[in-house]
């Protein structure tokens, strides 16, 4: 019988702990499919963050390291410098990457560290129960912005792809979403491009996934995706923010 659909080899059999409707599962799968298709599982070292994806080390079949909060790009730097032939990636959330780990993120990009960063932006701290994140939208209600994020006191959200694309060390930066089939397919292409950027030795790559958190947003999974489209995507426009590949250089930049 022909196999028409199967689990990527780069994912383990462990059942994930993610909430119903969470997009981590899709993103894990996309990364694993790309590891499979590029034949990278055996040389890959993944770095799990602190946050909802902390136990990603149980879900990917490649070697994994669990990092202190926000330090994943520094851990990945250590691995990549020690083992230049390894395919090194981090998997981080918005609090991890854009709050406590801002310095590690910005400097890994500035150094052109030859690693891939997969950044899951759901505008909230999920694991700790729904606190305001650096990417929480103005007016968005969370446990620690109970009256809505007031930019006068809590400041403004950070647009990570835009910020990092100003750095010369960033070779590839794309913002994607996984809210519909078309976007999922585009997201997979972006993940593959990020790995290809590393394989080509071109430097730092980041794929930012605009994601939903039905549990902490207080929506059903499908409502959450509607909210994502109506509120997140206008603030965080999808697209390629930087691409230094020869192919892209031949085309017009967005």
């Amino acid at each position, binding site marked *: 019988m022909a196999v028409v659909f199967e689990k990527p080899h780069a994912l*383990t059999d462990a059942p994930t702990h993610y909430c119903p409707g969470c997009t981590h599962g899709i993103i894990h799968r996309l990364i694993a499919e790309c590891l499979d298709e590029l034949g990278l*599982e*055996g*040389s*890959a*070292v993944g*770095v799990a963050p602190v946050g909802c994806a*902390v*136990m990603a*080390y*149980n879900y*990917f*079949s*490649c*070697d*994994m*390291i*669990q*990092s*202190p909060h926000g*330090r994943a790009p*520094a*851990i*990945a*730097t*250590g*691995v*990549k*410098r*020690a*083992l230049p*032939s*390894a*395919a090194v990636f981090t998997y981080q959330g918005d609090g991890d990457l854009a709050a406590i780990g801002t*310095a*590690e993120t*910005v*400097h890994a990009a500035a150094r052109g560290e030859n690693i891939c960063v997969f950044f899951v932006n759901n505008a909230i701290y999920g694991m700790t129960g729904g606190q305001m994140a650096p990417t929480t939208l103005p007016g968005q209600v969370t446990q620690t912005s109970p009256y809505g994020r007031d930019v006068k006191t809590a400041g403004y959200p950070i647009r990570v792809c835009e910020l990092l694309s100003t750095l010369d060390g960033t070779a590839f930066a794309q913002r994607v979403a996984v809210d519909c089939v078309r976007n999922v397919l585009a997201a997979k292409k972006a993940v593959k491009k990020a790995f290809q950027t590393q394989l080509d030795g071109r430097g730092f790559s980041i794929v930012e996934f605009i994601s939903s958190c039905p549990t902490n947003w207080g929506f059903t999974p499908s409502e959450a995706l509607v909210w994502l489209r109506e509120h997140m995507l206008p603030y965080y426009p999808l697209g390629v923010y930087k691409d230094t590949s020869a192919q892209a250089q031949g085309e017009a930049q967005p």
Partner: protein
Amino acid sequence: MKGNEALAQAAIDAGCRCFFGYPITPQTELAAYMAKQMPKVGGVYLQAESEIAAINMVQGAAAAGVRAMTSSSSPGISLKTEGISYMCGSDLPALIVNVQRGGPGLGGIQPSQADYWQATKAPGHGDLHILVFTPSSVQEMVDLVGKAFDLADKYRMPAMILADGLLGQMMEPVEIGGKEVPVPAAKPWAACGHRNQREHNIVNSLYLTASELEDLVKKRFERYREIEAKEPLCEAYLVDDADIVVAAYGAAARIAKAAVRTARERGIRAGLLRPVTVWPFPKKDFQAAARHASRFLCVEMNMGQMVDDVRLAVECSKPVGFFGTTGGVIPTPAQVLEQIENLSGGAR
């Protein structure tokens, strides 16, 4: 050679191939030496954006199975404590050098031993220990670096060279190099890519089931007990018949040794116990000395941070006094001698 540079060369000779640092006085020569020499041996030198990033880069390289190190001085070591704790929790070997300066806070940049408590009691959060070596000469710094790496690998835990600004900045003749660079033992636990030839390795310190974490910590403490039994190092100088035993490590021990020598010339039965490891603490050497000594005197460049360890080692069987200077002030042999003479009550 200058202490900081000799230590760096010794690390290269010990097979260290990854150095991640951040500038801070008085250890900066170590990083500068690495920046110059590492590329020549195909190693990695990287100046991180912070001490926090540097220790995490060390953690990444260590997790990948490579001999890695960082160096800093007191305020920078405080920033590294997060990474040190994670490395203990993940059973990762690495070398951390602390060329101590005066504290707390930004403190000063003169030599100090005020991080003894931090190194031996709480180098990070959680139930943990790290190996702590306290050299007292440039040569000993050189000699201990290889040992620190070897024991870190053997017991899968971080090791620290607890030096001070005096040793780091001092120039002394050293015998260095000339030996083959050792090939560290295989690390089958490393996250270095499984080549599709084994199950995936996970380097991790998270255990959400309390009993699982307890079991793991207890197992780690069995290892710590083994280290306490096998690995303490201590120099005993004129201790065999000593009535007054001075306890000092690092730079303070050099000063104390001179004072002990003069005291002997003046007929006082003084001796020196110089811990070369302060974790594990050389308890047996102190217990042996307590059988004949009437009292102990700790001499440190801090406010008396080793005193409690000496008291515990001798189980308070003999009085343990203290003389020290702090803030970057260095004690003189004459000051220490005066203390010894006071304790001897002038009795010859």
